[in-house]
């Protein structure tokens, strides 16, 4: 019998199978920790007895196998194709295969037209993603699996991309959500991702075969798939050989090849394959030599804080806690600003326990001779910790960091903080924070990325980071989100880069990300002269050095770079001038208990996921809320909120029963703004207008299966849910026109809609089977040309719906134009009222500027309410854009909605006590152009620019920080102006 070897080298594991005819002789599955050749050779050596002295055929597959195949000359087969081969041979009654690997996810449809798909370049939801999430929870993937079995509820976690999911999970952790629930939510996210990212409109039904390592090892993941896809026991197949499918397919492929090998020959090919790097481009080394490194170290050693022995200290002390997204930091300061105690650690998914332990430790050290006189907490977990331990004060992170930085350099004009999850930087002008930049969800996770990566290669972060210091040929890994970096690293490894080179390359990537993506600076001069860098990530000399190199000059890195938030908080607590801190006393601390329970708020339609934390003594802390309602506190005074006004107007629309049928209109994208028009038009003509439900997560999920391009913006993807909603209401027709042009408001060079808004109906019709069973009306119409519109709509209605006299159509259209104009006027009137209200009550106003469809609560995630909960008047861009002469811009101003952004920004610059926050949907290509322009307008008018990127992500933690910082800065400014 013929002997065949199938080798599958994936991104994280090597799988080898050996067949003799149809008989499986050998199988092996192991992580390769990026040592591809070595591991493969080791495994083969284990099978030596089977192979030695015989001729065999062999082939290689897998994403990391491609390089190995090229270098060794052994035949290669694409892995999805190999899976297909294996399934056709050994499980031919399969309808669909879902295979999750280390970094790839694949789906194969067999019945009804064979089709194979792999995840795109921007997609998480794979084994590596699960690994990352597990390490975030400080558990192994196995433990994660076990946790998931005991879940109570599932949280919505953004599933598109690992980085996104992470920013959803982190706040849940910080709010004290149960690990069991998070574990199961992670698996659910993977399932959702598979459905949107891979199935793309094709339904997964029939007999489904689940393959790949994660789907074999993780029972919780299996359960989620089975339940979500509603599969019966016999239709959900998890074969024992699941992880080996590709390897088996590869061995089948090998049988058809001509070449055969002997053991010695095969092993030699693998071990001796030329290791020549074909990289021609690499970055400059971090240090020329040891000497340069020593000099660098000596320079940075100067920025220190003195320590003082707590045992011999008598007097007051000030506690600062920084409960960050991945780490918890604590500092205890003496009256003379010396550090008595310090702590820095990963919060291992439960910051409350850590703070408790540390407090106990501190109290023990304090004894009777040190008195706690003040305490303050900052960071993501601020509210939780403050409530749990009765901390004296909380302060926004930016302020804590500014305080700390000033301690080292009173003249500081720029602070850059790279933490585990986020990059923060702020410019300091005239002693106050002038502008704040945070990384958007997309490029976040930079610090923890290095850490996770180090772990995946089997090193701790410090060792890994130090490898890079003397790399001769650092690889260029680009400056994009971490998912991309993963594949760049793969590519570099394929090209023969060493761990040293990759380590150095990663450091540089993190830095470039910060400078070019977050700060968007061109040169060092733009950043200022007195830079202070901090955050745990800068403790790595590699990252620090990369930064200095990229900037071209030296910066200050305090020796306590990782503790700056806590240090700043401690300094702040000192400034409270209290005699005794309110922080929990040793006695109570001993009895301290903490439980967390998940529930859903019934306060309004938002249905926030709440976590109720109960502490000993009956104190409670509720998190996850977007407004004050569930807290049972007094309703904050209702300040005008144009978002709410506009949404309520839509909700109040009631269509009379029609004589000509029921026509459905999806409530999303441009249909929201044009609703008054279409609503009036069709009701006037005697149709009953049925609107889809207001968006919700649930609505999104119902349409998720038919989304073909998962990188489109969230507002567009929601349209699939709106169509489902309309169909479930049993309408006869759905009306959703394609519109290249918008209304011409005569304030810009042209009046286009963006391509997605303009033509999304085409995509819906092409991808939603259900639309073929109702009358889906998507004519090309332009409302900007009234006469022409009347004619085209008449022709269309007469052809597609029924014959209606032209006079009737003209009358309805005229009413519709009036209704649209009136609606716009009402918004402006309400805007004026809101502005007057703000003036009369001395309130701040924020123009929350975006697109008309950003009023959708599922799109803005309640940001408007969050802002108004601070007692701020919220107005929309269309309520103020007309108050100024049209703004001249440096770009082609050709989209109607976007022109309003520029004008409202200009208006803001003319007003006191008013700022603008721009909402940007992730994936909006056009906002890449508008954001820079809006920033220019605001900054040249002496205002701050704040941009919030929104997507499926449900977490408002980062948003809160930005808004609080913005408010602080506004206050600071007006204080200065009054002085």
């Amino acid at each position: 019998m013929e002997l065949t070897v199938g080798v599958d080298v994936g991104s994280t594991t090597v799988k080898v199978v050996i067949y003799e005819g149809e008989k499986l002789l050998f199988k092996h599955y192991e992580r390769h920790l990026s040592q591809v050749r070595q591991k493969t050779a080791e495994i083969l050596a284990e099978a030596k007895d089977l192979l030695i002295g015989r001729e065999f055929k062999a082939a290689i597959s897998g994403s990391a196998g491609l390089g190995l195949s090229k270098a060794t000359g052994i035949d290669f087969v694409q892995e999805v194709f190999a899976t297909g081969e294996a399934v056709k041979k050994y499980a031919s009654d399969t309808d669909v295969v879902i295979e999750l690997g280390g970094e790839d996810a694949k789906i194969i449809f067999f019945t009804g037209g064979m089709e194979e798909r792999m995840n795109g370049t921007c997609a998480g939801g794979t084994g590596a993603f699960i690994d990352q999430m597990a390490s975030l929870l400080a558990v192994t993937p196995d433990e994660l699996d076990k946790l998931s079995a005991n879940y109570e509820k599932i949280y919505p976690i953004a599933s598109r991309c690992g980085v996104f999911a992470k920013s959803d999970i982190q706040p849940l952790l910080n709010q004290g959500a149960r690990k069991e629930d998070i574990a199961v939510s992670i698996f659910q996210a993977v399932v959702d991702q598979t459905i949107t990212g891979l199935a793309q409109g094709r339904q997964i039904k029939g007999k489904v075969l689940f393959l790949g390592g994660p789907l074999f090892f993780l029972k919780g993941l299996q359960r989620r798939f089975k339940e979500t896809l509603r599969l019966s026991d016999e239709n959900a197949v998890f074969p024992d050989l699941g992880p080996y499918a590709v390897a088996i397919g590869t061995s089948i492929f090998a049988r058809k090849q001509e070449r055969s090998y002997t053991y010695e020959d095969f092993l030699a090919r693998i071990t001796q394959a030329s290791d020549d790097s074909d990289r021609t481009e690499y970055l400059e080394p971090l240090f020329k030599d040891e000497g340069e490194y020593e000099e660098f170290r000596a320079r940075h050693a100067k920025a220190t804080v003195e320590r003082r022995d707590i045992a011999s200290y008598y007097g007051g002390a000030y506690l600062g806690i920084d409960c960050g997204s991945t780490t918890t930091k604590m500092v205890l300061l003496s009256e003379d600003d010396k550090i008595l105690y310090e702590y820095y650690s990963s919060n291992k998914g439960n910051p409350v326990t850590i703070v408790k332990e540390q407090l106990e430790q501190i109290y023990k050290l304090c004894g009777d001779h040190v008195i706690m006189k003040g305490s303050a907490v900052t960071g993501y977990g601020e509210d939780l910790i403050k409530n749990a331990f009765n901390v004296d004060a909380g302060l926004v992170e930016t302020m804590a960091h500014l305080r700390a930085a000033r301690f080292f350099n009173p003249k500081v004009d720029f602070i850059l903080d790279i933490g585990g999850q986020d990059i923060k930087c702020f410019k300091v002008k005239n002693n106050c924070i002038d502008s704040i930049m945070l990384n958007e969800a997309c490029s976040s996770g930079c610090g923890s990325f290095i850490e996770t990566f180090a772990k995946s290669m089997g090193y701790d972060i410090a060792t890994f980071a130090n490898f890079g210091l003397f790399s001769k040929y650092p690889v260029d890994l680009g400056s994009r989100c971490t998912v991309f970096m993963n594949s760049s690293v793969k590519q570099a490894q394929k090209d023969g880069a060493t761990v040293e080179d990759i380590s150095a390359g990663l450091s540089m990537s993190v830095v470039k990300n910060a400078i070019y993506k977050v700060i968007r600076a061109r040169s060092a001069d733009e950043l200022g002269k007195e830079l202070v860098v901090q955050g745990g990530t800068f403790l790595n000399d590699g990252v620090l050095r990369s930064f200095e190199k990229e900037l071209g000059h030296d910066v200050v890195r305090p020796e306590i770079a990782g503790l700056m938030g806590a240090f700043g908080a401690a300094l702040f607590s000192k400034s409270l001038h209290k005699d005794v801190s309110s922080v929990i006393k040793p006695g109570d601390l001993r009895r301290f208990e903490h439980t967390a329970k998940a529930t859903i708020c019934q306060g309004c339609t938002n249905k926030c996921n709440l976590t109720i934390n109960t502490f000993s003594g009956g104190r409670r802390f509720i998190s996850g809320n977007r407004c004050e309602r569930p807290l049972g506190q007094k309703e904050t005074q209702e300040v005008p909120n144009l978002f709410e006004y506009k949404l309520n107007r839509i909700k109040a629309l009631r269509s009379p029963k029609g004589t000509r049928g029921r026509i459905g209109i999806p409530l999303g994208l441009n249909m929201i703004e044009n609703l008054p028009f279409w609503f009036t038009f069709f009701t006037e003509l005697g149709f009953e207008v049925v609107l889809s439900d207001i968006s919700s997560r649930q609505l999104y999920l119902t349409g998720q299966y038919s989304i073909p391009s998962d990188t489109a913006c969230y507002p567009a993807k929601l349209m699939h849910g709106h169509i489902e909603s309309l169909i479930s209401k049993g309408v006869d027709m759905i009306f959703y026109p394609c519109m290249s042009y918008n209304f011409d408001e005569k304030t810009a060079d042209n009046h286009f809609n963006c391509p997605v808004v303009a033509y999304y109906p085409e995509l819906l019709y092409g991808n939603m089977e259900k639309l073929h069973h109702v009358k889906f009306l998507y004519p090309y119409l332009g409302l900007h040309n009234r006469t022409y519109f009347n004619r085209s709509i008449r022709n269309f209605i007469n052809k597609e719906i029924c014959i209606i006299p032209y006079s009737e159509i003209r009358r309805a259209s005229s009413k519709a134009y009036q209704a649209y104009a009136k609606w716009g006027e009402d918004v402006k009137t309400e805007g004026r009222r809101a502005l007057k209200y703000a003036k009369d009550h001395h309130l701040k106003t924020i123009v929350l500027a975006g697109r008309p469809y950003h009023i959708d609560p599922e799109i803005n995630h309640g940001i408007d309410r969050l802002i108004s909960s601070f007692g701020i008047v919220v107005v929309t861009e269309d309520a103020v854009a007309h108050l100024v002469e049209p703004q001249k811009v440096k770009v082609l101003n050709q989209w109607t909605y976007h022109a309003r952004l520029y004008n409202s920004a200009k208006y803001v610059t003319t007003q006191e006590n008013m700022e603008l926050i721009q909402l940007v949907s992730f994936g909006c290509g056009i906002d890449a152009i508008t954001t820079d322009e809006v920033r220019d307008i605001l900054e040249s008018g002496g205002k701050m620019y704040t941009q919030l990127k929104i997507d499926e992500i449900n977490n408002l933690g980062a948003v809160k920080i930005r808004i609080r910082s913005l408010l602080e800065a506004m206050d600071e400014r007006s204080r200065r102006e009054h002085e």
Partner: protein
Amino acid sequence: MSKPQDNGRVIFTEEMKKTHTILVPNMLPIHFNMIAQIFREYGYKIEVLSTSGRNVVESGLKNVHNDTCYPALLVIGQMIDALESGKYDPDKIALMITQTGGGCRASNYIHLLRKALKKSGYDHVPVISLNFAGMEKNPGFKLSLPLLLRLVYAVLLGDLLMLLSNQCKPYEVIEGATDKLVQDWTKRLSVSLRQKASYKQVKEFYREIISDFGELMLREEEKIKVGVVGEIYVKYSPLGNNNLEQFLLSEGCEVVVPGLLDFLNYCIYNAITDHKLYGTGGLTSLFSRVGYKYMVKKQKDIIAAIEEHGKFRAAGSFDHTKDLVLGYINRGVKMGEGWLLTAEMLELIEQGVNNIVCTQPFGCLPNHIVGKGMMRVIKEHHPEANIVAVDYDPGASRINQENRIKLMLANAKMQQEAKEEAKEAATPESAAVSEEDKVLIHSK
């Protein structure tokens, strides 16, 4: 040094025509070199940039908003990189970039370029907009009718050379022969077009070119044909698509790329459609009709010449291509590559090229609709279609892209083998294949 005028824009003056060298980004090497040659004949100093590598991308990342599409990042990066290279005197340089004027972001490239120039301290460098919509006029740069005609000729000839080269290169017996022939002809045509060739001469060139290519020694073998469609820049530019053509050739494929003329026709045709749908631009629509007729006629001449010779496959006529989308997507989808992208996929499939790489910059807005959004419908009607969408951006790794293309190729190979087996099975005596045999064929 020139002063900013006209809304802050630096005008390209008549004097500058003599003193300044115009830098042009490269998209299609064959076409652009000929076009440059024609401009030179009309008195412009012009240079097509052919730089590539990390500096270009780095410079783009530094100067353009990173969420902007990849082509903008590359083109602007390439230009700034050239200005900073020290190779040119920045006071004697002008830049040229195309502007389509549609609702896609691409119309804003020129403004992003100006912003980038300002940021880098080159705000005195004039930027010329190459467009046919009458945007941004410059006294030193005028598209006269004879010049325009010659540009059209260059596109026609460029498309022909590209088409023939694609059909010969994978099969050439003498390595490099095809490339050499392309080079020789580009040189020759540049000179001839300079001498104000008439269209009659151009038609004569068609015949000569085709016959020259017909004489290349080619191997008789069937290769897998792979069509490339997508956003215009990443579709054509090797810098934009990580040398996609080279990769496909190295995988043993024949590459089929629709010509540039189709894109021009598409732009012209859109003006006609716009008038029909929205009642605007009556005059433009009238001119467009004339232009459209002219262009389609010219394209048909090429097709006729190729068919007359008989050895090569001609591209479809635009008149026909445009109708392929009926029932798939409305021709009102006019932003970016719009409905043309869908049409090109359908044209390829019609010609038997079922394997298609659909290229787009990451997050390309129109392609959500016309590319990825249409694949399902296309596959429904053409189950044999084997399409892979590949995203390009500064962070996307080549291995990721190549792995996906390889999957498409593996399927292509399987299809081809099945076809060959079916052919073998279809010998006369098996004309009436029993049900049993059919099953056997399938299970092979």
